[in-house]
């Protein structure tokens, strides 16, 4: 019973690939624009053996990582500040909400005007897209700390530092991680979009190139690599979130 549902899901996913393969073989789908899994899989292995593809992947990962490492402290810091200073927070709230709602992608051309098409532009655009998620995450993390627990800690003699370490951090950790995970999804999307739009290297740049030159097996194999990496990163952060938030009562 416990294994039945995941098994069904796995069978379903395999079924889709099988159907795809069969439809190409039966001539229902054009193999030129949608090569079957049996063509894509070997290409995937081949791509992972090419030095320039690996380098492009490295460039993308570097951009994603740097943008994330900048966004997290900056976003959380702004979020905490706005949450801890209620007056200031109330004043800036509409601006933050507006900027959060604004679609970031349409500003991409401006980042080319300012930064060109190099790595800095990808990082800057990644930060620009991600930081608002983390600001809101920081605010709601602070707001999720139960006031009563702060009172308890104070009644038992906690000083400021102890209140932060013993109450704020553990109480906020799951919310912070959740927003970091969401931010990471936005971040990866932003960097890849920037690479497809205009770049000199990166896996997004390669994907755009393979699309233009109709090299479909390469294109699909690259999509598979990107999707797998993104899911893996998400899964990793999700695991951490679950572990640190095990004390949260979850509806069954």
């Amino acid at each position: 019973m416990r294994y039945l549902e995941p098994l069904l899901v796995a069978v379903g996913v395999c079924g889709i690939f099988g159907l795809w393969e069969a439809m190409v073989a039966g001539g229902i789908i054009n193999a030129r624009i949608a090569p079957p899994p049996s063509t894509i899989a070997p290409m995937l292995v081949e791509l992972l053996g090419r030095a320039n593809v690996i380098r492009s992947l490295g460039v993308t990962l570097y951009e994603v990582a740097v943008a994330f490492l900048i966004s997290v402290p900056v976003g959380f810091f702004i979020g905490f500040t706005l949450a801890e200073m209620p007056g200031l927070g109330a004043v800036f709230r509409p601006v933050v909400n507006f900027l959060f709602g604004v679609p970031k992608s349409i500003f991409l051309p401006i980042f080319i005007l300012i930064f060109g098409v190099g790595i800095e532009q990808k990082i800057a655009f990644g930060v620009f897209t991600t930081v608002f998620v983390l600001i809101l995450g920081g605010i709601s993390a602070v707001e999720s700390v139960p006031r009563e627990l702060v009172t308890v800690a104070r009644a038992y003699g906690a000083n400021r530092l102890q209140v932060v370490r013993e109450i704020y951090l553990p109480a906020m950790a799951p919310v912070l991680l959740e927003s970091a995970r969401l931010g990471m999804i936005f971040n990866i999307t932003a960097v890849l979009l920037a690479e497809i739009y205009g770049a000199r290297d990166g896996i997004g740049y390669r994907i755009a190139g393979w699309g233009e030159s109709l090299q479909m097996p390469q294109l699909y194999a690259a999509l598979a690599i990107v999707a797998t990496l993104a899911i893996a990163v998400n899964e990793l952060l999700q695991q951490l979130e679950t572990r640190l938030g095990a004390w949260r009562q979850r509806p069954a």
Partner: protein
Amino acid sequence: MLRTPSQIRWAQAALAAVILAGWELLPRFGVIPKLFVPSLSEAIGALYEYRAEYLAHLPATLVEILVSYLLACGGGVTLGMLIASSPRARRMALPVLRSAYAVPMVVLYPVMMVWFGLGMGSKVAFATVFAFVPTLLTTVAGVASLSPHLLETARAFGASRWQRILYVQVPASLPTLIAALRLGGALVIVGVTVAEMLGAVEGLGFLITRHRTLLNSPGVYGGIILVLVITSGHEVLLRRLERRVEKFRES
């Protein structure tokens, strides 16, 4: 200093004034290069100057948005409601959808261009795919967070699956549905403009990219302002809908 509501409102107004004044003055006096950020008046001026062009390209964008909206939100909400009506399907679908949500769908645009070409087809297909998973996920997760008693009670009264969906699940999850539409609609608008920016022959996104290639930054900002008007319009519409639904639920 910032305590009472009226003080806060004054400060907010002041902040808005400072932002707008900064946007106008900083580029004007060369503190920010005009290529990066043209002054507010120049951006609005560009909107007027190129009005014929923008108007000519607006219909294509709006049609693409409308069609993708129907496909992504209609499809996402309907499928979501169906999946959510069965606890088992819900349990199986949620982890798959959460993983799918993590996949950066932008990488699919090159594929869409191969399949559907430079015209409207690839925009509609991309925006639909781009918005579909989040809409579906929001719907399923929203229904999953409803109290299970509600559906069980309906089942105890002998309601069929379709009756349960139509008379219990849909009314109970109206706020969720609106949240799904709100997110899905916003993503459709982004999807369409992004697709137009990446490769197209018409539409607002196409204009934005063309002005960028010509290093005409007022033209770029004009286009961006127009897209923001569309997203804000969508937001306002859905807020209204939300309020109407709340009123309806209260009565």
